[in-house]
C-alpha cells in the first residue's frame, strides 16, 4: 500500500505527503513560480511518487510533478514551430505532429518515454541529424519558472539580445529554474525515404567518406557509424522530395572511396531498431555519450560496442554501450557555475 496520502499544505495547496516530503502536480505553468517560492528544496518528477526512484529524490522537500504539463499548445505549420509544455514526452509530441504531416526529424528510441524537460535539463540530448540539426538547433524558445515569475523569450529563429538565455537551463539539472515550455522547430514529413549502407575497412576511412558526403552538401536525415564484424559500417537514412538525384550523387561520391555497399534494406532494418517509429518501445542502447575530437579512431579504440551518430569535422558524439569515464569538468568553471546557481537560489534551496 502506498505510504503517500492526500493532504493540504498551507502554501503548496493540496498534494500528497509521506510525512517527510510533499508531492504536488500543478496543471498550469504559471502556478510554478509560486510553488517554487514555497517548495523549499524541490525536485521535478514525472509521475506519481510511488513510481519514482528514491535515490533521485532523497533530499527533496517537495516533488513537483510536471507530467500534467504536457499540452501541445499550438502548432504553426507555416513557420514550422510547435509550442509544447515540457512535461510532454518526445514520442507523444512526435505522434501529435505526425497527425498533421509534421515531424521533429528522427527521434532516437532511447528518448522514448522521456519528457522534454528531463532530457533538456540533463544536457543537450543527441538527436543528431545532418539534415534536421540537433535539439538545441531547433530550440527556438524556452521558458522556465523561477521563484519570482516566468522567463520570457521571443520566438525567433535567431536573435541578438544578450546571451542566449534560453540555453541556460539546458544541462543545468533544473538548478537554473524549472523548464516549463518550449518552442521547437518542426518539419514537413517528406514524401520519400531511402537508405544506404556502406562498409569500410576502418574508422578513418568511414569518417572520411561521411565527411565527404557533408562537404558535398548532401544531408542525410540520420546516420550511424559503428563497428560491424571487422569493419566499420556507415548507415544512412535520407528524407526528401528529390531522393533519386541525391542517391545518384551519393553513389557517385562514395564510389571514390574504398567501401563495400550492402543492400539498402539492411540499413533500413537497422534504422528501425534505433529510431522511434509509431508503436516502438524504448531501447537502452546508450547509457553514455561522450564527445570525441577529430581523431575518431583513437577515441573509440578498445571500446567494444560503440555508435557514432553525430559526426562533424571537428569531432563526434560517441555512444558507448557500457559505462566509460567522461572527462571531468573543469573545476574552475564548476565553481563559477555554483556561484551562478547560488546567486539564483539565494537561500541555498531550489531545484537539483
Amino acid at each position, binding site marked *: 500500500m502506498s505510504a503517500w496520502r492526500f493532504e493540504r499544505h498551507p502554501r503548496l495547496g493540496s498534494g500528497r505527503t509521506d510525512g517527510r516530503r510533499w508531492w504536488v502536480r500543478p496543471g498550469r505553468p504559471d502556478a510554478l513560480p509560486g510553488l517554487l517560492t514555497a517548495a523549499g528544496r524541490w525536485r521535478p518528477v514525472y509521475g506519481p511518487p510511488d513510481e519514482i526512484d528514491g535515490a533521485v529524490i532523497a533530499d527533496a522537500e517537495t516533488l513537483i510533478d510536471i507530467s500534467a504539463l504536457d499540452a501541445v499548445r499550438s502548432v*504553426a505549420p*507555416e*513557420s*514550422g*514551430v510547435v509550442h509544447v509544455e515540457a512535461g510532454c514526452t518526445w514520442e507523444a509530441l512526435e505522434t501529435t505532429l505526425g497527425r498533421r504531416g509534421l515531424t521533429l526529424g528522427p527521434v532516437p528510441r532511447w528518448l522514448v518515454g522521456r519528457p522534454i524537460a528531463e532530457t533538456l535539463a540533463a544536457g543537450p540530448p543527441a538527436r543528431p541529424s545532418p539534415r*534536421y540539426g540537433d535539439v538545441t538547433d531547433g530550440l*527556438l524558445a524556452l521558458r522556465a519558472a*523561477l521563484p519570482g*515569475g*516566468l*522567463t*520570457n*523569450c*521571443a*520566438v*525567433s*529563429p*535567431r*536573435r*541578438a*539580445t*544578450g*546571451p*542566449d*538565455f534560453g*540555453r*541556460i537551463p*539546458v*544541462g*543545468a539539472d533544473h538548478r*537554473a529554474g524549472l523548464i516549463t515550455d518550449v518552442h521547437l*522547430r518542426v*518539419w514537413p514529413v517528406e514524401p520519400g525515404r531511402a537508405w544506404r549502407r556502406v562498409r569500410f575497412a576502418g574508422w578513418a576511412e568511414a569518417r572520411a567518406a561521411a565527411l565527404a558526403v557533408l*562537404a*558535398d*552538401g*548532401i*544531408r542525410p536525415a540520420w546516420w550511424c557509424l559503428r563497428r560491424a564484424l571487422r569493419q566499420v559500417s556507415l548507415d544512412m537514412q535520407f528524407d526528401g*522530395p*528529390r531522393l533519386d*538525384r541525391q542517391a545518384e550523387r551519393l553513389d557517385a561520391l562514395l564510389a571514390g572511396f574504398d567501401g563495400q555497399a550492402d543492400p539498402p534494406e539492411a540499413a533500413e532494418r537497422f534504422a528501425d531498431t534505433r529510431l522511434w517509429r509509431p508503436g516502438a518501445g524504448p531501447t537502452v542502447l546508450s547509457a553514455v555519450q561522450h564527445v570525441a575530437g*577529430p581523431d575518431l579512431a583513437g577515441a573509440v579504440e578498445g571500446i567494444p560496442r560503440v555508435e557514432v551518430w553525430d559526426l*562533424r*569535422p571537428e*569531432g563526434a558524439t560517441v555512444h558507448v554501450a557500457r559505462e566509460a569515464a567522461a572527462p*571531468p*569538468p*573543469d*573545476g*574552475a*568553471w564548476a565553481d*563559477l*557555475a555554483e*556561484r*551562478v*546557481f*547560488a*546567486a*539564483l537560489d539565494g*537561500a541555498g534551496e531550489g531545484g537539483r
Partner: protein
Amino acid sequence: MATPTPTAIRDGLRSIVGDRMSTTPPDRTAYARDLWPRTQLDRLVGDPPERPLAVVWPTSPEEVAAIVRLCAAQRVPIVPFGAGSGVCGGARAVPGGIVVDLKRLKRIRRIDRAAMVVEVEAGFVGERFERTLERHGLTLGHFPSSILCSTVGGWVAARSAGQCSSRYGKIEDMVVDLEVVTGDGRIRRTARAGGLDWNPIFTGSEGTLGLITAATLRVHAQPAARAFRGWRMPSVAAGLEVMRRTMQAGLRPAVMRMYDSLDTLLVGSKDDAKGGQLGRLKAIFAGTGQVDALKQRATRAALASPRLLNFAVDRLPDTALLVTVTEGSEAEARRTDEAIADYALAVGALDLGEQPGRAWMAHRYDVSYKQSKLYRAGAFVDTFEVATTWDGIQPLYHAVRRAVSAEVLVMAHFSHVYPGGCSIYFTFAGTGRDPADMRRRYARVWQQALDATVARGAAIAHHHGAGLSRRSHMPATHGEAARWFAALKAACDPAGILNPGKLFAPDDIPRAEGGR
C-alpha cells in the same frame, strides 16, 4: 573605497602594458563612442559622449587579465572595444572607466584542417581574417557588411550575422570554444567548462561578463562553385513564400535577400546621384552622394512630411526583387539554384538572370562607415533589424511601418533566412526643427518600433545586439530571465566593472540574492 585618481590608474596600466596606453584627448575622444547614430545627434545637440580615462592596447590574454585585476581592485569600469563598428552604443565609454582595445590580439593560433577549426585571437579584423583563411582554401562563411571594420571578438560579443547566414549560420553557430577573461581576472576556456554551457552565455554578452581574447571557430572549404540569380516577385508575400519553402526543404542557399517596394525601386534604379530623384535618395541613404545646399533643403523638406512619403510608398506596385546566391560543390550550387527556380516559377516570379545576384555580390560591402550625408542635410538615418517566425513576418513588417510612419520615411529588406523565419532590416530617415527636436524624434521612433516588435512577440534584434539602444526593452523581452543575467553578472563580474549599463539598465537588473 576611495575613488582612484586618474594618475593611479594610469600608473597601474603602464606597469602592465608600458607605452601601449594613452590618456591624450584625441585618443580619449576617438574611443568615446562606437557608430551608434544617436551619438551623432548627441554631438549636434552639444551633448557629446563622456570620454574614457584611458585607452589601453594589450597584446596578450595575460595582459588583459592583469588589466582586469587592476580595474577590479580599484572598481574602474572597463569597456571592451573591438573595432567600434557597433551601432547600438555597446562600446560607448562609461564615465570614470577605461577602454580596452583588443585589436592587438591578432594572431591566428591554430588552423586545424582535420577538425576544420581555426583558433583566432579576438582582435583580428574580419576582412583580413577571411583573406588569410582563403589562402588556406578555407572560409569562415561570416561576411557582415562591416567586415572591413569589425573584429572576431566584436562579432562573438554582439552575436553578429554575416550575409551568408542562411548557409553558414550566425556567429553563435560557428563557435566551438572561447577564451575569456572574467571579472576576477582569470583566463578561462569554455570548452573545458562544467555546470553550464558557457558558449551561449558569453556569445552575445557584449562585454558584460568577460573579455573574449580568442575564439575557436568552425571553418569550411572554399566553395567550388557559385550560382547567382535575381527574381522579380509578384508580391512581397510571394517572395516570402519562396524563401520559406526553400529553407524548409532543407536547402542551404548562401544568400536570399528580398527588398520591399521602395527598397526594390532604389536598388533597381539606374540613375546616379547627379541624375534622378531615386538615385539621389539612394546615395543619400548610403551616405555617398554629393549634397549641395539646395539638395539639402529639398531633402529636409521631403523628410519633413513622412506621412505623405510613406503614403506614396504604400501605393507603389507590390513587387519585390529577390536576390539569390547559391554555393558549394558545383552540384550543390546548381541543385539549390534549380530548386529555388521551381519554387519561384510556381508563384509567378520573373527570372531576371544572373545580373542582380552578381551586382549584389560586387557591391556587398559598399555600405559607408562615414556618417551619412543626411546628417549634414539636417536629417538623420538609422537601421533597425528584428526577426520572427514566418507566420509573423508580414504582420511585424506592417506593425513596425505603421508605428513609425508618422515620424520617418521607412523601407526594409528581408534577409537572414532560416527554416523557421527570417529577419527584417528596416532603414528609416527623418528630420526635425533643430538637433534637439531630431533627437527627440529619433528616440520616439526607436521606442515605437521596439514597442511594436515586443507586442508581436518578435526578437528586438537579429544581429546588432542591444547595447544602449535596446536595453529599455530587454525586461519586456526576457521577463524573469533578467534574474539569470543578474546571477551571471554576480558570478562572472563580482566587482561590476565589465561594460556596466550595457544590455540591461542598472535598475532593470534584479538584485542577485546569493553569490559569494
